[in-house]
């Protein structure tokens, strides 16, 4: 094996330029593949994180029937007992109780359908990052009643500014129409323009005063990390049988689905890259076999059996990949390490990104397992690409070595 390795290694460098071109294409292909994967994962992760941090949180608890029609009458029962359970649950880092209603927001010029979210300002601060998204005014830092936070996109649509007056109209639990005048105390801007256009935040105490009842529709929970969510959800599900406990994947299945779709696409991208590389490798090895047909014939003439000839060609092919693949992976890892800190500024297409809930700067990210996956992929595809040139080599006649030259 040592001699086969030695011969294979030296054979590669008999035509250094050709070998370097193939190795270079392997390096570039793998680097590009890793980078595209990391970029897409970063994109998706950012979208998921942004949705979790700015709105949906990790876990939500509702009345079992609330999510069917989002009717205001399905409120959380025994909120005090629920709070106590959440306080004692180890997996829960923070929670916020919210009131949710659908209604209209009216300015003197225009009106718009919105979801009205009643929050406790301090509780909400611990669960979402809404407070950090304020671009004008403050996050409920006012002593006045009926303060409202609206999104930048909605403010533009309604032609309202900070301290403008707007009227919210909605139904109470008995379907009575309730209206209340609110003053804009803050304007926020998340990464998702559509969200900003369709959601307004008021304080629970103002909403409860208008509704003349103190009730909540949702408890939004933050777990210690994304990895803990499943365990915490299971634990709460077993303790809160009379409630509807759902994690972010079930609350917003499109986010989880995007993850799955992305994985499939990325797998396909890597396969396409590897197929392109295979053809490069096959071409190079076929040329090598063709150029050395007399030498290979001679080897068989003097007694090198077919399996050893096959192993020689296979080893040469593997060595080409083994030089290229780690270099490509290293280059990919370095690129990701740098760009995951600096980010990739895509502000030129910022509007488009924001309409789908993404920021202007993307931070590529990759799971370490992906490198193992790439290694296996490269190994398997190299083996496949070695088969055809090796078979060609085995078809050579030893007599060629004697007849010609």
């Amino acid at each position, binding site marked *: 094996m040592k001699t086969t390795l030695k011969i294979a290694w030296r054979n590669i460098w008999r035509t250094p330029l050709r070998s370097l071109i193939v190795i270079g294409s392997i390096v570039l292909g793998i680097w590009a593949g890793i980078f595209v994967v990391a970029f897409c994962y970063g994109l998706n992760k950012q979208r998921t994180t942004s949705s979790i941090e700015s709105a949906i949180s990790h876990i939500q608890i509702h009345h079992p029937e609330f999510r069917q029609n989002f009717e205001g009458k399905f409120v959380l029962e025994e909120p005090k007992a629920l709070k106590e359970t959440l306080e004692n649950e180890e997996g829960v880092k923070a929670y916020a109780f919210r009131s949710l209603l659908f209604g209209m927001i009216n300015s003197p010029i225009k009106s718009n359908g919105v979801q009205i979210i009643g929050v406790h300002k301090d509780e909400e601060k611990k669960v979402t990052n809404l407070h950090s998204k304020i671009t004008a005014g403050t996050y409920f830092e006012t002593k006045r009643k009926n303060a409202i936070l609206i999104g930048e996109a909605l403010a533009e649509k309604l032609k309202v500014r900070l301290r403008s007056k707007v009227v919210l109209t909605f139904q109470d639990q008995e379907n009575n129409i309730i209206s209340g005048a609110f003053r804009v105390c803050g304007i926020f801007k998340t990464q998702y323009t559509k969200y900003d256009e369709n959601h307004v935040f008021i304080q629970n105490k103002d909403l409860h005063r208008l509704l003349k009842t103190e009730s909540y529709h949702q408890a939004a929970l933050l777990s210690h990390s994304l990895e803990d969510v499943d365990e915490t959800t299971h634990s709460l599900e077993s303790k809160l049988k009379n409630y509807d406990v759902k994690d972010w994947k079930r609350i917003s299945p499109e986010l989880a689905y995007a993850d799955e779709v992305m994985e499939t696409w990325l797998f396909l991208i890597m396969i396409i890259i590897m197929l392109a590389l295979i053809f490069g490798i096959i071409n190079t090895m076929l040329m090598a076999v063709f150029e050395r047909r*007399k*030498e290979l014939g001679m080897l068989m003439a*003097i*007694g090198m059996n*077919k399996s050893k000839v096959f192993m020689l060609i296979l080893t040469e092919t593997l060595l080409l990949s083994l030089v290229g693949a780690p270099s490509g992976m290293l280059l990919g890892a370095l690129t990701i390490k740098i760009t995951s800190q600096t980010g990739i500024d895509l502000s030129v297409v910022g509007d488009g990104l924001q309409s789908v809930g993404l920021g202007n700067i993307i931070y590529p990210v990759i799971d370490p397992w992906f490198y193992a996956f790439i290694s296996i992929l490269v190994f398997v595809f190299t083996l496949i690409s070695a088969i055809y040139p090796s078979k060609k080599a085995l078809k050579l006649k*030893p007599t060629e070595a004697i007849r010609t030259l």
Partner: protein
Amino acid sequence: MEIIKTKNLSKLYKNNELEVLAVDGVSLSIRQGEFTAIVGPSGSGKTTLLNMIGGLDAISDGSVEIAGTNINSMNENELIDFRLKNIGFVFQAYNLIPVLTAKENVEFIMLLQGISPEERKKRSEELLTQVGLEDKFNVRPNQLSGGQQQRVAVARALASRPRFILADEPTANLDSQSTSKLLDIMAEMNKKENITFLFSTHDQRVIDKARRIVTIEDGKIISDEVR
């Protein structure tokens, strides 16, 4: 002792409708220690005869026995193994492995035979010294002259301790001085170690050195002269 024995050996090449009888019913017997040259003009069938004796070309008719073993019925893998253990080859164009040094080239065939590294090292150095290349152990073929490369090829052919050596036009690419040196080495090995050599050649210098000359024309033996 008969090392090579062919009986009515024939080779028919078919190319579309054209049939060429390259070797036509050759019966030949070579004994241990012979130094034989098969001579004849180009296209007379020398190389084809050697190829069949060496198990490199399929036989159309007749038989080849090497040290009593009929090789006709062997499959390709069996023939490769048989060649490795029984036959040494020296080619016209040397055909050394260009990425290996002279010593590694000689060792390579012993490696295929599964001989230990120590034994390989010892024998390859001995053989290269015997062919006068004691100062070229670690030199690659492209840094050697044609004559030196052919001497490495002879050392390689001997390394596997074959029953005989088949040499197809071994001097065709060599100048007079190199030819003379190579022939002296082979003749000495034949004399001292009783190694059997079978050449195909039309080089008068080889013919002059041979002790038995088999002349072949149109695939048939027309004379067999022992000196």
